[in-house]
C-alpha cells in the first residue's frame, strides 16, 4: 500500500512457494548472466562499455548505502569508505606486491573493520548527530589522504595501479573488466537481497521502523546498527578497490563528499523503500553526467534539482511509480 513511503518496506511475507520462488530467482540470475555475456559485444563502442562499468560499480555503492539506510541511518562518508578501500588495495598491490584480487578482499575486510570501530563509537549518538559525525569522518579522510604524503602521495594520488588478474585473465581492459564488474555487482545484489530476507534484515527493518520497540523485542539494536554500518561500508570499500584497479589512478579527489552525495541521490531518486531502488537510481543517474558533459556545469545542477524534485513530488523514488500510478488511476487499496 505504501510504496510511496520512504520508510523501508519489510521483506515480503514468505509464501509457501518460496522454495520455487528461489528457483525462479536463480533462473533470472542465470538469464541476466547470459545477457551480460553478450553485452560488451553489443555496445557501440568502448565509451559505452566504460559507462556500463561505472554504472555497475555505482550500483554496488548504492546497494551498500541502502544496507546502511535500511537500519535507519544515513552515511555521509560512504565515499570515504570507498576511498579507504581503494587506497588500501592500491597500496597493498603497489608497495607490497600483493595480487590485486587478494588485496581487494583484504581492503574490503579492512574497511569493514574500520567502519565497525567507528560505528561502535558513534552509534550511541542519535539520528542527526550520527549523520553529522559521518560527515566529519569523511572530511577527516580527505584531509588524511591529502596530507599523509609519505603514504598516499598527497594530492598527486597513486598511479600505475595494477589491474586485477584472476586465473591468468587480466581484467584491465574495459570489456574484460565489464565481466568482473558485472559479477561483483550481481554478487552484491544477491547478497543484499538475501540479507534483507534474513534474520538480520528483519532486525534491521524493525530498528528502522521503531527502534525502541525493536529493543523491547529483544533485538540488540546497537549491535545490529554497527553490523549494518560495517557491512555496507565494507562493500563500499570493495567498490572503491574495484575503481582503483580499473581506472588505475586514484587521488583524494576521487572520493569526496560530492561522491557521497551522489550515492545518496541515487538511493533517493531510485527509491529507498526496497533495495531495488538503489539499482534503479544508479542505472538512471550514473550515465547522466557522462552524456551531459557537453553542458558543462549544468550536469551537477540537474543532479541536485532531480533529487529535490523527487523528494517533493515522488518521495518513494522511481520504483514507486507503478504503485503511484495505480493509486492515481483509482485502483489499489
Amino acid at each position, binding site marked *: *500500500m*505504501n510504496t510511496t*513511503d520512504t*520508510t523501508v*518496506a*519489510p521483506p515480503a*511475507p*514468505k509464501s509457501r512457494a*518460496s*522454495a520455487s520462488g*528461489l528457483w525462479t530467482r536463480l533462473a533470472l540470475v542465470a538469464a541476466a548472466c547470459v545477457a551480460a555475456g553478450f553485452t560488451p559485444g553489443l555496445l557501440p563502442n568502448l565509451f559505452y562499455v566504460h559507462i556500463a562499468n561505472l554504472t555497475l560499480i555505482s550500483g554496488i555503492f548504492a546497494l551498500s548505502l541502502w544496507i546502511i539506510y535500511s537500519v535507519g541511518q544515513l552515511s555521509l562518508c560512504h565515499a570515504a569508505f570507498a576511498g579507504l578501500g581503494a587506497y588500501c588495495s592500491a597500496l597493498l598491490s603497489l608497495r607490497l606486491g600483493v595480487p590485486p584480487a587478494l588485496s581487494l578482499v583484504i581492503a574490503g575486510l579492512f574497511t569493514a573493520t574500520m567502519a565497525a570501530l567507528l560505528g561502535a563509537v558513534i552509534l550511541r549518538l542519535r539520528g542527526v548527530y550520527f549523520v553529522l559525525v559521518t560527515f566529519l569522518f569523511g572530511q577527516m579522510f580527505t584531509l588524511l589522504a591529502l596530507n599523509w604524503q609519505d603514504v598516499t602521495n598527497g594530492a598527486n594520488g597513486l598511479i600505475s595501479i595494477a589491474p586485477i588478474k584472476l586465473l591468468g585473465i587480466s581484467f584491465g581492459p574495459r570489456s574484460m573488466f565489464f565481466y568482473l564488474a558485472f559479477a561483483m555487482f550481481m554478487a552484491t545484489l544477491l547478497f543484499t537481497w*538475501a*540479507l534483507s*530476507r*534474513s*534474520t*538480520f534484515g*528483519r*532486525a534491521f*527493518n*524493525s530498528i528502522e*521502523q*521503531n527502534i*525502541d*520497540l*525493536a*529493543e*523491547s*523485542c*529483544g*533485538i*540488540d*539494536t*546497537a549491535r545490529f546498527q554497527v553490523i549494518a554500518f560495517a557491512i555496507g561500508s565494507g562493500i563500499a570499500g570493495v567498490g572503491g578497490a574495484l575503481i582503483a584497479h580499473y581506472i588505475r589512478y586514484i587521488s583524494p579527489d576521487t572520493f569526496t563528499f560530492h561522491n557521497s552525495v551522489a550515492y545518496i541521490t541515487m538511493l533517493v531518486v531510485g527509491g529507498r523503500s526496497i533495495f531495488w531502488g538503489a539499482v534503479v537510481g544508479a542505472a538512471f543517474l550514473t550515465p547522466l553526467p557522462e552524456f551531459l558533459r557537453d553542458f558543462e556545469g549544468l550536469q551537477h545542477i540537474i543532479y541536485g534539482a532531480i533529487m529535490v524534485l523527487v523528494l517533493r513530488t515522488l518521495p518513494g523514488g522511481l520504483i514507486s511509480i507503478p504503485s503511484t500510478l495505480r493509486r492515481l488511476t483509482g485502483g489499489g487499496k
Partner: protein
Amino acid sequence: MSILLDVKDVAKRFGGLTALKDVTFSVSEGEIVGLIGPNGAGKTTCFNVISGTLPLSDGRITFQGQDIVGLRPNRIIRMGLARTYQATSVFPHSTALENVMRGAFCRSEDTFLGSMLATRASREAQSKERDRCMAILDQVGIAHVHDHLAGALPYGYQRRLGVAIALASSPKVIMMDEPAAGLNPEESMAMGQLIRDIHTDGQVSVLIVEHDMKLVMGICDRIIVLDHGEQIAAGSPNEVRNNPQVIEAYLGTEVEA
C-alpha cells in the same frame, strides 16, 4: 511460588528531583500485581527503571535471581521480562502478524546463515514461528486482522497488538503500562479479561500499572501503591482500598472504585 522479579530499595533521581525512593516489592510466579498511585507518583518511571530504559540511582533489581541492573533492555527481555508501553508502540508499516513475529525475534530458531540461504530448516523455523504468532494473535482476539498494516489498525486493536508483541517473546513476567488507557468501559473489561486469560493460559505473571480502579481491583492478587515516588501501601485489593493513607493520597483525584 518462587519470586521472579525482585525490586529492593530502588531509588531514581533526576538531578535534584527524587522520582523514586525506597521502592521495594516482588512479583512471584502465578501472580497479578498492580502498581497504582496518583498521577506523577512515579509508576512509569519505576517501569522504565526495571526494564532498563532508565538507569538506576540506587537499589537492586533481580530477575529469577539474576541482577539486571545496568543491562540493556534487549537482554532483559531475553531473560523473560517483557513490557508494554503507555504510548502505543507498533511497527506501523508491517502487518499485525509480522509485528508479532518481530516480537518473537529472540525466541526464533531461525539462524542468520540459514535465513540467508533459505534452507529448509530456516523455512520450517519460520513456519513454526508464524503458527505460534497466529495463535498469539488469536489469544488477544485480533487474528482476523492479521494481514492488516499495524499503523492502520484502530486504537483498541493496536493496544492488543502491543500485548501480543510482548507475549511473543514468551515472557515469564509481563509489565503492562496502562493497558486500558484510552479504552471505553467495554474495551476495558475485555482488556481485563484478556489479562486474566494470559495469566492463566500462559502462566505469565503480570505487573500492571493502571488508573482504571475497577480493572485493577478486579484482577490483581496484590496491589502496591506509590505516592510521590514512595511506597505507601501494599497488600490485597481490599486492604489497599480501605487504607487511610491511600485514600488520602487520592483525595481530590477521581477514584472509580
